[in-house]
Each structure stands twice: as structure tokens, then as C-alpha cells.
């Protein structure tokens, strides 16, 4: 695949010193995460660089979401340190769509619009520029025709892409996606993975996504973080993982 060749060329150029080393967007050093002092994942050390596509693989309940929540500052870590090179408002977070309450009457465009809420003041109407940006990200994910549809009436794949669009609305430097391919048909999986690859290559956005499907992660990601029984294994493929 062409992007693999590109990445290989970039990596060899970096190693030869032709391209300066970028700073990591997120660095974890010996981090332990869990609930009520009981660690779920321990000893995590990794750095995520701009433009890298990293997969977090592991079985259900292995602590993938817990690790993500710690990186996003939603959960305090039990040990170690997490440093971020950009504010949390530059983190594009894509939760599992099943975690969102279908009781809410929301159109797809209203869900995407939420990504702009950090920039719009309370008393303001949504500026035209933000409306234009919504159209732009909807075009980017290839679903502008579904803007007016009820968000919860969309298919699993369409919902995930809309949530990616919402994450793009924050102008992210890094995107964290929790099981974006779960409950999604094969065609949508392909379009989502293509979109993630495109974001890393064209926008230089770092993408860190989780999946319990190791095979799929191996097929897509530049690097793999495997989590099992509370332990982490790093597998560098095409991009830098460990500082």
C-alpha cells in the first residue's frame, strides 16, 4: 500500500537525521490505571507522536477504555506520570456510540456541532464559520447527506463516522477512538480505517484507537500496544512508540 511506503520513507529519513524529530503529543511513563486503588493496567510507558496511527489491542475488559480515560484526564492515574503537549481541548475523543443515550433527540449535525462548543461562548449564536466547518467535516467523512437525520437512527458505521466528525470539529492534534469498529459492518470498517489513515497522513493527526480484534489492528496500525492481564506489550511496526 502506498501509505506504508510513505511511512517507511519518512521513518528512514528521520533516522538519518534529514527530518527533525517531532515532540511526542502524549507521554506516559510507568503509568498504572484502575478504579478504587485497584490497578487494571500497570507499567505503561509510551509516547505518541504526530501523524502516528497506533492501535490498542486486547480482549474485552482488559482495561483499554480505562487507559484511554486516564490519558484524557477523565480518570486519575494510580501511579506514574502522563504528560500532554497540547491542551485537552485539542484531544478528539470518539467514545463507543453504544455509550451514548439514545433518549436524546439529536440530529447528526447537532452531534457534530458539539465539537465546536469549546470555541463558542454561551450567549453567542453558532457563527457562520463554525457552520461552514461542520459542512467541511461532514464532507470529509463522506456523509453530508445525513446531516439532518436522527443520529440514533443511523447505522453503527455511520454513527462512528459522525462521532469522528465531531472529534474533527475540535481541530484535534490527537484523536482517541474507543472501539470505533465495534458493531460495524465490513464496508463501514474499511471506510473508517481508510479515514483514520487519511487523517494521520494528510492532517498529521495522531490517532490512538482500541479494538479487541488484533488481526485488524495489525493490518491497519503503524504500531500496536497490546494489553492483556494488566500488562502492556509494545510492538513497533512503522512508527515510533517508545521514547
Amino acid at each position, binding site marked *: 500500500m502506498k501509505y506504508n511506503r510513505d511511512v517507511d520513507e519518512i521513518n528512514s529519513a528521520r533516522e538519518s537525521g534529514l527530518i527533525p524529530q517531532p515532540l511526542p503529543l502524549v507521554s506516559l511513563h510507568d503509568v498504572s490505571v484502575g478504579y478504587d486503588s485497584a490497578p487494571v493496567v500497570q507499567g505503561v510507558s509510551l509516547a505518541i507522536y504526530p501523524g502516528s496511527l497506533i492501535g490498542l489491542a486486547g480482549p474485552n475488559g482488559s482495561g483499554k477504555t480505562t487507559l484511554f480515560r486516564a490519558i484524557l484526564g477523565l480518570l486519575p492515574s494510580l501511579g506514574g506520570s502522563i504528560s500532554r503537549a497540547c491542551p*485537552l481541548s485539542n484531544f478528539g475523543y470518539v*467514545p463507543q456510540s453504544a455509550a451514548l*443515550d439514545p433518549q436524546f433527540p*439529536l440530529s447528526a449535525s*447537532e452531534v457534530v456541532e458539539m465539537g465546536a462548543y469549546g470555541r463558542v461562548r*454561551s*450567549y453567542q449564536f453558532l457563527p457562520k464559520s463554525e457552520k461552514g466547518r461542520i459542512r467541511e467535516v461532514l464532507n470529509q467523512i463522506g456523509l453530508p447527506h445525513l446531516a439532518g437525520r436522527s443520529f440514533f437512527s443511523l447505522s453503527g458505521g455511520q454513527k462512528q463516522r459522525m462521532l469522528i466528525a465531531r472529534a474533527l470539529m475540535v481541530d484535534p492534534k490527537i484523536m482517541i477512538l474507543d472501539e470505533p469498529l465495534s458493531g460495524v459492518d465490513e464496508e463501514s470498517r474499511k471506510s473508517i480505517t481508510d479515514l483514520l489513515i487519511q487523517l494521520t497522513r494528510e492532517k498529521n493527526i495522531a490517532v490512538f484507537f482500541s479494538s479487541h480484534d488484533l488481526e485488524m489492528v495489525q493490518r491497519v496500525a503503524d504500531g500496536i500496544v497490546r494489553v492483556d492481564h494488566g500488562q502492556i506489550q509494545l510492538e513497533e511496526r512503522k512508527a515510533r512508540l517508545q521514547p
Partner: protein
Amino acid sequence: MTTLLEIVQPSYLLFPALLGTLILGLVCPLVGSYLILRRTVFLGLTLPQIAAAGVAFTFWLQQTGLLPQLGQGEMGIAMFGSLAFTFLGMGLLGYLEQRGKGLAEGRLAAAYALAGGLTILFMVFNPAGQVEVLNLLKGEVIALSRGELQLLAGVFGLVFVAMLMFRREFLLTSFDRDLAFLLKGRQIIWDVLLYLLAGLIIAFGVIMAGPLLIFGFLVLPALAARPLVNRMSSFLALSSVLGLVMAFFGFYSSVRLDLPLGPTDVTLGCCLIFLAYALRRISPQRSLALIILSLIALWSPGCGSNIAPVPVPEAKTLGEKTVWLARVKNSTALTLLLPATNPLRSLAEMAGKVSSDYRQSVMDLLRESLKTELEQRGFRISLPEEKDARFAAFPADTGTAVRVAREGKLSGFAFVGEIRRWEVEAQKFVRVFVDFKLIRIDDGAVLWERRIQRAVPTPSATNLGQASADAVRDIVRELFAL
């Protein structure tokens, strides 16, 4: 009978009440929408009940002498109790939520049961003030004065503006707390603000309109709007519109059919929910047609002309025959004794809560006024009990009245009256429902009959007795077309 066009005139007696109900209908659903979406709808039921307990508590404190008697300041005392208990209750529920002990629904259910129990207990402790507390808790928005309307408009206007201004923050923290944290930092301030606004409208609303109506306005319009829309902005807008529809047509039905406002509004709100689910099953064109037809159906009888009421016939049409003016029958559950000087004691007496010596009643006053008026018009009036003491209680239905009159060897005509409802509302008006009949005893023919069922304004009354006296005068004037 009151028409739809009549109630929207600013000069209409109950116009402030109509505006007050519309304000409740506009603002409450905005807050209630979030309570429903956050699945904390029982908070909308529990907080009004806690507010009601606060009202009963402050009146009890006043009765024990721990709070000063403020004369006409009942509303202020009630407001204080309502606000204090609402925010105290919210704080306690919030603390328990933070501790995370037990089920959220369980906590709300227990708080509701406790508040309901305390409300009754505080009223039992305070028998002399039971009627006032009950009146306040019934929430007669119908008795809203212009000053109270201004207060309501001010508080609810503030809540309305805040709900619009912070709609994005409320939506984000309700829908996706993680994203809210990433974009706006800690979101607890928005939770606190939302519940503060909810507490504010509940505490004020319970005093102005009662717990039932407030709970109805909080949840029913939003529940009716939910199946019809797929956008949050449309959901909020439609909830408010349906709240206005519920308020307006509920008010109109209440006035027209002489029904209590709270239950009428709530019943209408439930009908709106059924209608919404029915509309969802049919095409938009048919839905629109159905809505238009429903509105026309509601509008048509409302705008129709009234049949002019017939005044009491001329005396000469009865010849020189005697008219037996029977004691007016009291079919209410109240004694309707006219109060003495102590308004608190009098209220309790009117409700039959405490014993009293003989006093003149509304029935006596009404018959005296009728007697005076009939005699002035040349009728030969006699009182049945003067002929036979057993006629002190005279039946009001035609058949029995005729039979009893014949058995008592009365001849001529019987003038009977029956009070079915007589409720003095904060001295501003009296809700009356009174029937009168003029019956020919020989053949049982009803020569004339008249029903007066409306709110009789008593703006100049300074106490409850005067309000009843003014209402009697107004009724007699109407009967004789003065």
C-alpha cells in the same frame, strides 16, 4: 358562559391567572426536558413535594409562635418555606448522590414519601391553619394577583433566559460528560446551575400553582414532544409550545367547565402525549389536518355566542299566589358559616375543622337577599318553616320538593336553591355553583330555573365573610338582571 375570546381580554377578571399559567407552560417544559433526558424525572415529582412540606412546616412554625404572624404575608412565609426546603432537599440529595449510596430512584422515592408524610404531619400539628396550607398547596394559580404575576414573570423570565443562554452547556453535560470535560473543564458548575434553576421554578411554582401543576408542566409537554422531533432545538421549542397549548386550553376548559385548573391541565397534558404518539403513526399531512381540525373543534364552541339567561319572572305572572321561599340547600362538604373576626379560626370553621357556636351562613344570607328582592318586586313571600318547623331543611330537587310541599299542604309556588360549590379564593373571588328553581306546587312544573356557575369577583372584600357577602349580592343581581 365564558368564551375563548373573553379570556384573552386584559380586562378579564382571571387574565393575570391566564398569563401566569402561560408563563408556567412556557418555562417549565424547558427545564423538564433536561430532567427527562437525564432520566431524573422523579426529581420533578420529589422536589415539589419537598417544597410543599416546607410550606406546611413554616405555617406550623408560625402557629407555634416561632415565626411571627405577618397578617397578609402568608405568601411570603410560604415562599420562604418552599425555597428553604427545596434547596435543602436538593443539597441532601446531591450529597447522597456524591456518596453514591443506594439507587438514585430509591433515594428519590424515599424523599418523596418522607416529604409527603411530613406535609400531612405538619398540617395535623396545625389544625387552625390547615385550610390556608391546603389552599396554598392546591396552588390556585387562578387567584394570582398582578403583584404575584410580576414576581412570577421575573423569576421565570430569569430561568427562561438562563435556559436559552446556557443551552449548549446543559446539552453537552447531559449528553456526553466526557466531551464536556474535555471542552469546558469540570462540568459540575453546569449541573449545579441546572438544578438551581429547576429548584427555583419548583419552589416558586409550588406556591403559585401547586405541586401537581408544576410536575405536570415540567414533564408532560416534553414527553408529548419527544416522539415528534429528532432535533434537540426542535424538542425544546416544541416542548414549550405544547406547554403553552396545555396552559391555554387547560385554563379555558377549567374556566368554562368550572373544573380545578391543576387536574384539568394535567389531564390535557396526558391527552397531548397520546395524541403525539398517534400523530407519529400517520403521515405529516394527516397529522397537520388532525391538528387543525382539533383546534377548530376547540375554537368553535369557545367563540360561539352565549344564550342570554332568563331573569326571574314578573310577580304578576304568578297571580296573587304565595311563593314559599325555601332555605337554600347546602350540598357542599363545608358548613359555609360566615366567619367572625379571627380569619384563621374562621377559615377552619368554614371547613368544619373546629366547633363553633351558631353563626349566620351563606345560605341564610342568600335567602335573606332573595327575600328582600322578591318582596320589592311584589311577590308574596312566605317561609315554609314558619308554617311547619319540619320545613327547615327543604329538598332542592323538583320531584321531592313538590311531594314534600304537597304533604305539608303548601300551595302556590316553591322557590328552591341549592349551593353545590362555594369556595372563597383569597378574598379576590368566590367560585360558585348555585342552582335556583321556581316550581308550581300543583302540577310540579318548573316555571323558571337558573344555574350560576362561575368565579364571582369580590375585589373590594377585605375579609372572607365580606367576600361571601359580595358574592351573594352579585348572584342576586344577576338573577334579577339588575
